[in-house]
């Protein structure tokens, strides 16, 4: 029993280390990628003992700066809620990582260990629920600052997130219909199968429309350009205007963590999760008949690496999107969500149902 607890604890620690390090370096990726896109060099000055290494110490410098900044609460704000808001945001996003399957089960010392912290039959719903709870952080911060503009920012954020939550949820119904499970690990297992004997049975190929809808809705969920109406740093006063220092930093971290979570979800639901095409539990079985048997540990390693690579790709992709598009107007955001994405996702459900019943 204690060993079980210990295993869970170790898994939590490892997952958080992975998650937070990735978050930290995602800020570096964002700065560097935007710089490369704009023919610049980007932050490269932070140095330790004369060592610069492409500015890799920049996130550390930023973190140190934010930690040592004054923790200021405006005198007119509600002190308790103002402090609570960033922690709420941060917590609900951080907790979703527990449902992400990093790989297949491994066997250590006769014990079956799944590479997932929280394995239940409703993990997909759990992730959706936690993501919707993150709205509370936004609304609370806007409201507790007791500033009309932050309140408006918080309201915009709530409206936008709730609108896109609908499309997000509806688009996933198609996936649930195809892979009849709410367990993320099961969905990933399903995607390991082959279609027509050669095509990996990824969500992307079974549900292309759902993928697009999910992508747009998820981008809107991250509250970044082009959907950054809740907080357009330079132009619109948004919900965390009255924050500074580490609390502001937590909002910022939450943003980047959401990117990673969205990438994880995209990977898990539409790109086969940790599945490598044609890689079974004992090695590669190529459709043209070749077999390449591999030891178990190498297979697991490849799977974890594949998951990471896919997640990195989607992180990169989201940063690219953020540095490419201008912001939507607010009515456009609402139109896009309610008039395009939701009807499309409903159509997708109906179409999926019809096709599935026809095939059966």
């Amino acid at each position, binding site marked *: 029993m204690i060993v079980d607890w210990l295993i869970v604890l170790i898994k939590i620690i490892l997952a958080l280390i992975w998650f937070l390090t990735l978050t930290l370096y995602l800020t570096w990726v964002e700065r560097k990628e935007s710089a*490369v896109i704009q023919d*610049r060099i980007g932050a490269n000055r932070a140095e330790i003992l004369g060592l610069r290494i492409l500015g890799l110490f920049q996130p550390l410098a930023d973190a140190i700066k934010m930690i040592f900044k004054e923790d200021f609460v405006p005198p007119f704000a509600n002190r308790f809620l103002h402090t609570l808001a960033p922690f709420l945001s941060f917590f609900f996003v951080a907790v979703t990582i527990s449902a992400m399957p990093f790989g297949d089960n491994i066997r250590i010392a006769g014990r079956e260990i799944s590479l997932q912290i929280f394995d239940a039959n409703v993990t997909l719903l759990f992730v959706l629920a936690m993501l919707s709870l993150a709205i509370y952080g936004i609304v609370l911060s806007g409201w507790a600052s007791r500033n009309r503009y932050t309140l408006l920012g918080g309201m915009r954020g709530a409206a936008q997130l709730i609108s896109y939550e609908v499309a997000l949820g509806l688009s996933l119904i198609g996936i649930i219909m195809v892979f009849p499970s709410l367990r993320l690990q099961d969905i990933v297992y399903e995607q390991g199968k082959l279609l027509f004997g050669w095509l990996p049975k990824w969500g992307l190929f079974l549900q292309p429309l759902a993928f697009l809808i999910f992508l747009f809705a998820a981008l809107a969920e991250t509250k970044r350009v082009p959907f950054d109406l809740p907080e357009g740093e330079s132009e619109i006063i948004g919900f965390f205007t009255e924050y500074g220092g580490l609390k502001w930093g937590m909002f910022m971290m939450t943003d980047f963590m959401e990117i990673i979570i969205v990438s994880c979800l995209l990977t898990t639901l539409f790109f086969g999760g940790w599945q490598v095409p044609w890689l079974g539990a004992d090695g590669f079985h190529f459709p043209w008949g070749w077999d390449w048997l591999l030891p178990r540990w190498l297979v697991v390693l490849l799977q974890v690496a594949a998951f990471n690579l896919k997640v990195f790709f989607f992180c990169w992709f989201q940063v690219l999107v953020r540095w490419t598009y201008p912001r939507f107007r607010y009515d456009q955001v609402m139109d896009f969500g309610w008039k395009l994405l939701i009807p499309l996702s409903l159509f997708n459900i109906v179409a999926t149902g019809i096709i599935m019943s026809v095939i059966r």
Partner: protein
Amino acid sequence: MIKLLGYFYEILKGSWITCRHFVVNMWFHTLWFLGIKTKRRGAVTIQYPEEKKEIAHRHRSLHRLMTREDGQPRCVACMLCMTVCPSECIYIEAAEDPDPEIQKYPKTFLIDLSRCCFCGFCVEACPEDALRMDTGKIELATLNREDLIYDLNRLIG
């Protein structure tokens, strides 16, 4: 609907542009990182304190006071620069020179660079060509304000 599709077309076009920039710049960055010095570089940035651009020959930089053959400043303390200075950063105190041909020389000549806006009017106003702004010194930052008040010695030197 067509309008909507056109919108998506533009979105894709935008992605293509940023992607192209990313890939091309990344390619040259990688080449440079590996030590292959191509003519083109990944970024147009000039890494300022290490790399410096050449200053244009008609630039205006730190002032200097010109001297006569005997090393005395050419300045006759006519205070025209002080008069024309829009930021009131020049202060001159005149004194009687024993030479009747010179008569007036600056006992004190202060330029407060913390106020100076480098407009160059003082250079234009000077009837003796005693003041020039061609030293090429543009990095004038100091840790205290007093160091920015340049006196006669520093202006000649």
